[in-house]
């Protein structure tokens, strides 16, 4: 490790750490804000996940760490976690009053740096800077690995002499480190830990994808992509990390697809897990099916189509496992590509920057993936296949690209790592999947429509249900109001300043009281709350919209009259994919 990095650069670090806190509970938000301020951190609060994402996207380097609650009305905390990890690569800490192991595990799987249990103590918050620090360190390691990649790749395919090449690499290496340190120097003294992040605009990402397609998934590598893209200011690391994220995204798509697939019909035993080749076959079966289906999909993005063409080429030597059903088709097709690409790829750098650093020990050593593969293949493969959701036509906007070799790589690690890497890339797919159910919901505003969509994604049902619930709760309000009893003592409420602000004490449409909690509410209060409930519900509608990928957020939140036909969905999704 560079000496400069091993200790805080300036006296004041971690003071001034820029924290973004997301929690729907206003009480907690206030408390956390106060606590963090006492730790001398710079705090920004928001109580909606989509608002948080908006803030994060607006200022990519504006925050050092994100703390988020797990249960939020507009979006699952885990999903937010994924998004942040994927788009901004910031450390995210989850919090919840619920400390069940399964939840904590889920947090780690989705890439959380830490999981705090409410009530949160000051001392727990004091130490959150370590996660920021750790990420920086891993970035350095990232760079180191990339350099090693360069060496390997060049050795494989070029005529450069080793000496000459090593020289270049070392030079590059030290240059990178120096740059990094310099950045740190400046950053820390600015009380910020800013990385020079590249903003992957739509255009840039399209260039990237085009380059990837051109090269072909089996041969893709950051350097080649960089060359093809011909963007002067872009560095190899930028491309490498973006490539990694892209792969994760694709693998996430695949994972989500599989998740909902009627996987039960597929027998795992059919997949020969013994050796990498067999595993390839196993994987390829999925991809083959996916390829077929993907090609049938109407993709608005041209790059998708281009990729389709590419992936077809790689199907040749893949054997199909027939048990895989059509359902799997919805998945990205590049699994086979991934496998091919894998052999020529080195994945060292890719994982170092994933949030769960500890999950990827293998990468420090850049072992050829095949080795570990054979060990864990059987169980890992199954695990990977399992979560593929069933995507039907509604999900035509899913890009055909399958998970890259990363999937296999993930399987090298422990199971949580598998799902975490996969889930990270799934963000977009879950976003796009949600479009359909969202639209259906908007269209009909009926509760019933939610159910089919609930099968789409794991996390989604939670959302839809709560939305659904909110819609449902709308109805009983009117009935309750009519059944309330007058309460004499309710008048005392009116003196109170707090939520009863809307109360007009005098009056009454006191309705009969039942022995329920409505006891102390009078008609007006109820109407006020009714209003509140309405607000709440309305709030949730946009919240529901928020389930739709944030990239869609802007065009969609304008009104609920979102065009639901597939043609408009696609471009939106396209757009969405590239806002990274």
């Amino acid at each position, binding site marked *: 490790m560079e000496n400069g990095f091993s200790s805080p650069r300036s006296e004041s670090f971690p003071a001034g750490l820029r924290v973004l806190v997301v929690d729907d509970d206003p009480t907690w938000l206030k408390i956390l804000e106060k606590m963090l301020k006492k730790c001398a951190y710079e705090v920004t609060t928001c109580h909606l996940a989509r608002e948080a994402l908006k803030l994060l996207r607006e200022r990519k380097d504006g925050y050092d760490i994100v703390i988020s609650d797990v*249960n939020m009305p507009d979006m699952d905390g885990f999903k937010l976690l994924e998004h942040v990890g994927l788009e901004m690569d910031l450390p995210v800490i989850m919090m919840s009053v619920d400390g069940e192991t399964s939840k904590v595990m889920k947090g780690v799987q989705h890439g959380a740096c830490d999981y705090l249990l409410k009530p949160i103590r*000051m001392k727990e918050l004091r130490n959150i800077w370590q996660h920021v620090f750790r990420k920086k360190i891993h970035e350095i390691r990232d760079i180191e690995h990339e350099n090693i990649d360069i060496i390997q790749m060049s050795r494989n395919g070029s005529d450069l002499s080793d000496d000459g090449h090593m020289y270049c690499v070392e030079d590059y290496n030290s240059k990178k480190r120096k740059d990094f340190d310099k950045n740190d120097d400046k950053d820390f003294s600015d009380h910020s830990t800013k990385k020079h992040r590249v903003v992957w605009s739509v255009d840039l990402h399209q260039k990237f994808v085009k380059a990837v397609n051109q090269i072909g998934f089996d041969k893709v590598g950051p350097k080649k992509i960089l060359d093809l893209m011909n963007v002067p200011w872009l560095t190899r690391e930028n491309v490498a990390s973006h490539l990694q994220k892209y792969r994760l995204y694709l693998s996430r798509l695949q994972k989500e697809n599989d998740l909902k697939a009627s996987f039960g019909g597929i027998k795992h035993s059919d997949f020969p897990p013994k050796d990498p080749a067999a595993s390839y076959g196993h994987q390829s079966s999925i991809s083959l099916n996916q390829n077929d289906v993907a090609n049938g999909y109407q993709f608005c993005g041209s790059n998708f189509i281009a990729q389709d063409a590419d992936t077809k080429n790689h199907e040749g030597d893949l054997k199909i496992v027939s048990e895989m059903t059509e359902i799997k088709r919805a998945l990205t097709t590049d699994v086979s590509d991934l496998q091919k690409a894998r052999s020529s790829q080195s994945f060292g750098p890719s994982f170092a920057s994933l949030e769960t650093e500890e999950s990827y020990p293998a990468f420090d050593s850049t072992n050829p993936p095949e080795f570990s593969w054979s060990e864990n293949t059987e169980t890992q493969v199954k695990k990977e296949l399992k979560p593929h959701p069933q995507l039907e036509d509604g999900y035509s906007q899913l890009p055909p690209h399958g998970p890259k070799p990363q999937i296999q790589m993930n399987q090298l690690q422990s199971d949580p790592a598998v799902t975490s890497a996969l889930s990270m890339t799934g963000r977009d797919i879950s976003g796009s999947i949600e479009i359909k159910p969202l639209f259906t919901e908007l269209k009909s505003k009926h509760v019933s429509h939610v159910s089919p969509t609930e099968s789409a994604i794991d996390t989604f049902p939670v959302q839809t*249900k709560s939305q659904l619930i909110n819609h449902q709760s709308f109805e009983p309000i009117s009935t309750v109001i009519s059944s309330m009893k007058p309460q004499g003592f309710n008048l005392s409420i009116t003196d109170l300043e707090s939520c009863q602000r809307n109360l007009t004490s005098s009056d009454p449409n006191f309705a009969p009281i039942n*022995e329920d909690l409505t*006891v102390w509410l009078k008609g007006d209060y109820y109407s006020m709350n009714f209003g509140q409930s309405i607000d709440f519900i309305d709030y949730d509608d946009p919240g529901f919209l928020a389930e739709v990928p944030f990239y869609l957020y802007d065009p969609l939140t304008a009104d609920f009259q979102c065009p639901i036909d597939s043609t408009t969905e696609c471009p939106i999704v396209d757009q969405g994919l590239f806002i990274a």
Partner: protein
Amino acid sequence: MERIQMRRQLALMRQSFFDQGFLDEQFIQLEELQDDANPNFVEEVVTLYYRDSSRLILNIDQALERNPLDFNKLDNYMHQFKGSSTSIGAKKVKAECTQFREYCKAGNSEGKKDKLGPWRQHVAQGIDGRGQKKKQDLTWQNIVIDKSKIHTFNHQKNGCPSGITMFWFSM
């Protein structure tokens, strides 16, 4: 004179809340967070809590009205409520929420409503006199009434926000 007495009274009351298990350590944390920059911190926090929790209770109540009970939804509300209550250290409320959630989990079956009955009694005393007014059963009614007391209290005694809060969480 009056002030001193009031302070003493408040202190006693405050202590009693701890002793009776209404409040836990989190409340002390809140008090510790209060400083010159935020002299009314505790009061502000509890106000927020109260506002939020009344909304939640309303939702819960409505959910309890439905037949059949939607336990998932109730569980969700309870979870939120529990989270909220943890924030100010409302120990008893938190315990009730946990128990309620147990009921929800245990039951998507018929007899659950009866189990819920007592809970509702406990938390929200029926005006019709059902449920005994044990000290623990401070109900919304009492809270509401107390709030009006609190405001007069506040006027008289400015620098003791914790007095206000003591009433609020006691349910």
